[in-house]
């Protein structure tokens, strides 16, 4: 049996009367690329926030890299990397400085910091840009720097919330190429949310589809495509079947404006 790095048991988060994530149970194996799909407001970001210890669950439990998100939050934080949907590097610093601060925050040994930063910049094809202010970077470069920053300490799991939102197809491909390499070289488990079905289809080992806070479908792309019965369906048809149309839900004003702001900053 594979090593399980994410284990969610009836994980639930309520905001007042509204249940954003409803009794979510699933597990993710080490080294897996796992995509969480769903329309806006389905509970994807809330799930990631709970798993990254930013938001306490209302009930249920989850273990990340073997640590409880409620009782061992600091151990969880040491074991994960997190790339939020919004831009999370500082534009008024250089790429190198953004990495240096995180190398220090994650307690990388002083003697290794420079080598690790150099390696991370090289790995993300940013060596030539390391000394430039991040405000001068393109959207794709910003995302790659964010991934470099979140993986300096070689986390077991990397959480990415809409990693390619607002990027053009070429930049999206470049980001994915680096994510795939990250898994290949370091065995990093990737747990990400996306709206782009083709990305999920080409990169995920398994996909979960959430709708109104609940897990509606889980499996490999193939399994999902045959799950509807009556012959094979496209992932897009499967998505519409489980998640409904975007018009039915659509997320809150804040979700939508945050997403657009990110797209605008990166684009």
């Amino acid at each position, binding site marked *: 049996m594979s090593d399980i790095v994410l284990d969610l048991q009836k994980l639930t988060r309520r905001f007042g009367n509204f249940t954003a994530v409803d009794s979510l149970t699933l597990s993710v194996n080490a080294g897996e690329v796992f995509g969480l799909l769903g329309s806006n407001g389905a509970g994807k970001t809330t799930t990631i926030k709970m798993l990254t210890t930013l938001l306490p669950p209302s009930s249920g439990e989850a273990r990340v890299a073997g640590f409880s998100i409620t009782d061992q939050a*600091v151990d969880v934080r040491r074991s994960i990397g997190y790339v939020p949907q919004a831009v*999370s590097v500082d534009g008024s*610093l250089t790429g190198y400085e953004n990495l240096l*601060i995180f190398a220090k925050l994650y307690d990388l040994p002083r003697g290794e910091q420079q080598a690790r930063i150099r390696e991370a910049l090289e790995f993300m094809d940013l060596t030539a840009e390391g000394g430039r202010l991040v405000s001068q970077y393109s959207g794709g470069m910003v995302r790659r720097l964010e991934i470099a920053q979140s993986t300096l300490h070689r986390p077991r799991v990397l959480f990415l919330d809409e990693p390619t939102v607002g990027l053009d197809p070429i930049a999206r491909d470049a980001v994915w190429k680096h994510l795939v390499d990250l898994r290949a070289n370091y065995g990093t488990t990737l747990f990400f949310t996306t709206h782009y079905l083709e990305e999920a289809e080409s990169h995920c080992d398994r996909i979960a589809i959430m709708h109104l806070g609940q897990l509606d479908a889980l499996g490999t792309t193939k399994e999902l495509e045959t799950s509807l019965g009556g012959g094979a369906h496209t992932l897009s048809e499967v998505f519409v079947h489980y998640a409904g149309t975007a018009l039915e839900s659509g997320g809150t004003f804040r979700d939508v404006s945050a997403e657009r702001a990110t797209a605008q900053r990166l684009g």
Partner: protein
Amino acid sequence: MATTFIHPLTGFVEKTFVITEFELRKLRHDFTELVTRALQPALWLLVFGQVFSRSGMMHTGNVPYLDFIAPGILAQSVLFVAIFYGINVIWERDLGIVQKFLASPTPRAALVLGKGFSAGIRTLSQAAVVYALSLLLGVKLDWSPLALLNVFLIVILAATLFSTFSLIIACIVKTRERFMGVGQVLTMPLFFASNAIYPTTIMPGWLKVISHLNPLTYVVDGLRTCMLSGSTSSFGLGIDYAVIIVTTIILVLIGARLYPHLAT
């Protein structure tokens, strides 16, 4: 993954300084704000201070009014710079920076205190401006190393105190618009209910009580004691330091509790 054991206290101090370094590195790339900030204390000292000094309306005992007001204006500019510091936190929240820091193993109190110290170091430029203007206006300054060290420490601590207060407000209101409103509402009462530009002895009784509860009063008293040659403290420098440090610790603890709310 690095698994070296680090003592919690050493870790906390180290992380605090990493956050301070993060903030100060930004300043290195763009220090225009230091120049624009110099204008406000200049206006207060050169215009307000000069006019009121000539009017002879303020009874400040043996100390000339310009001498009296110089440390008050330094305290005021520390307050004004620090009290709007929280807006940066809201900005960082609208981006994903706060979330990323909170998902790292950095102690919450180190995130808050590190930011506070950086505000402190930023406001040191205001001290340099006030000293230069005071020199120009003939204020009798105490140039002994001990006095300068005390001014240095009080400015950093005061900015840490008020910027942490500002961070707490930011954690509660969460939006820039509301923050600006609350910031404006708080600044003036803190300033006027203190001994910055007039002595507490001429205040009505109720205001005197409020001024004694206002940490700015102790900042001004500490600065006045150390900056001016031959000046004596109203409360004692020990009390000034104690009030400033204890208030800062309480605020940092509250800030550390509230800061994670920014990620939700």
